[in-house]
């Protein structure tokens, strides 16, 4: 069973600059990506950067990323005892 990690992108406006959740995670679960492909002659604007769970198998559901997020954008849930 893997934890569910949800990020509300509308509350997370510039994760590349903020990166608090990436640094707080003790097992390096989270990653940063873009929701658009790179464009010619144009840097991707900060609003198109998104944080997502990547290494879910290492998430302990410790909630450190949830606590550190200044915008309350992350939620992590884990259903104990429920197997897939």
């Amino acid at each position, binding site marked *: *069973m*893997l934890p569910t990690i949800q990020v509300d992108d509308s509350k997370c406006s510039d*994760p*590349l*600059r*903020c*990166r608090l959740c*990436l*640094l707080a995670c003790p097992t*390096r679960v*989270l*990653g*940063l*990506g*873009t*929701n*658009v*492909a*790179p*464009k*010619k*002659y*144009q*840097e*991707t604007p900060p609003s198109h950067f*998104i944080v*997502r*769970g*990547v*290494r*879910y*198998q290492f998430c302990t559901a410790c909630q450190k990323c949830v606590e550190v997020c200044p915008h309350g954008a992350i939620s992590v849930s884990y259903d104990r005892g429920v*197997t*897939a």
Partner: protein
Amino acid sequence: MCDWCEQYGGGYERWYFNPANYARRLYKVRREEAEASGPEANPQAAGGMSVVGREFLEAQARGDHETMARMRRDAEQVSWRIHFGQVVTKEEVERIIDLIYPIGLMTCVCRRSMRGLPDEENFTCIGMGPGMYKWERWPDTYRGGMNFLTPEEAKQVIDVVNRRGLVHCMYTFGTPYLAGICNCDYPDCGGLRTAVDMGVRVVWKGHSVAQVDPDRCNGCGLCVRRCQFKALSFSSSTLKAHIDAFKCYGCGLCRNPCKPDAIEMVDRASLPAVAGVW
């Protein structure tokens, strides 16, 4: 012999010593291949830099080995055609640097993805060949810009990142076109963590395997923290370093801090049981 040397060696000792694999005409091939394979072939657009994602991890969590094997095989087929890496030693990189032109130092997209590193702290990747000239056209792919280096400067960079403990990997961009020398570490490198955590061979082991001479090893343990592949441990019973030859990627990083020079790199082909373990 590794599959890539067999297919693309062109008579050279290793496929990455074959100058034809850096040639401009292959760059054209890359474009068609990459475009035909769709957006997943663009590691940046994929978000999180993974060739396999949650679906694989869910299969792993429920012990569904069949699904895992299928996903692994599919991911490897795409990766080997478009973009995969092979670990090389420092000595090999130094030889490669004399083959390539131009040489550009650029920021690492993997470490940006996992640590959100500011560009000025993130110049660890070497790109080479005609693709480097297009950096101004693709400011997002080449965030932070491009520093063109002389071969001597590039060797100095390799020395610095090697001392930092980063593994040198040769990467294809439309196999066999080689266009990147990445300097990687676990778990921030998308390639290394996919290979180590999921057994998906997007990074191949190198042509060497490290061996410890127990008579020389003084048990200082400095080598253990250099291993990015969980192949090196410290044996509490012998008080010496212990290397798992089947997990060793042959990067050679463990040798460097070893004062008594107790670690030797041997040719993978000389050990029959690991000769085919890539």
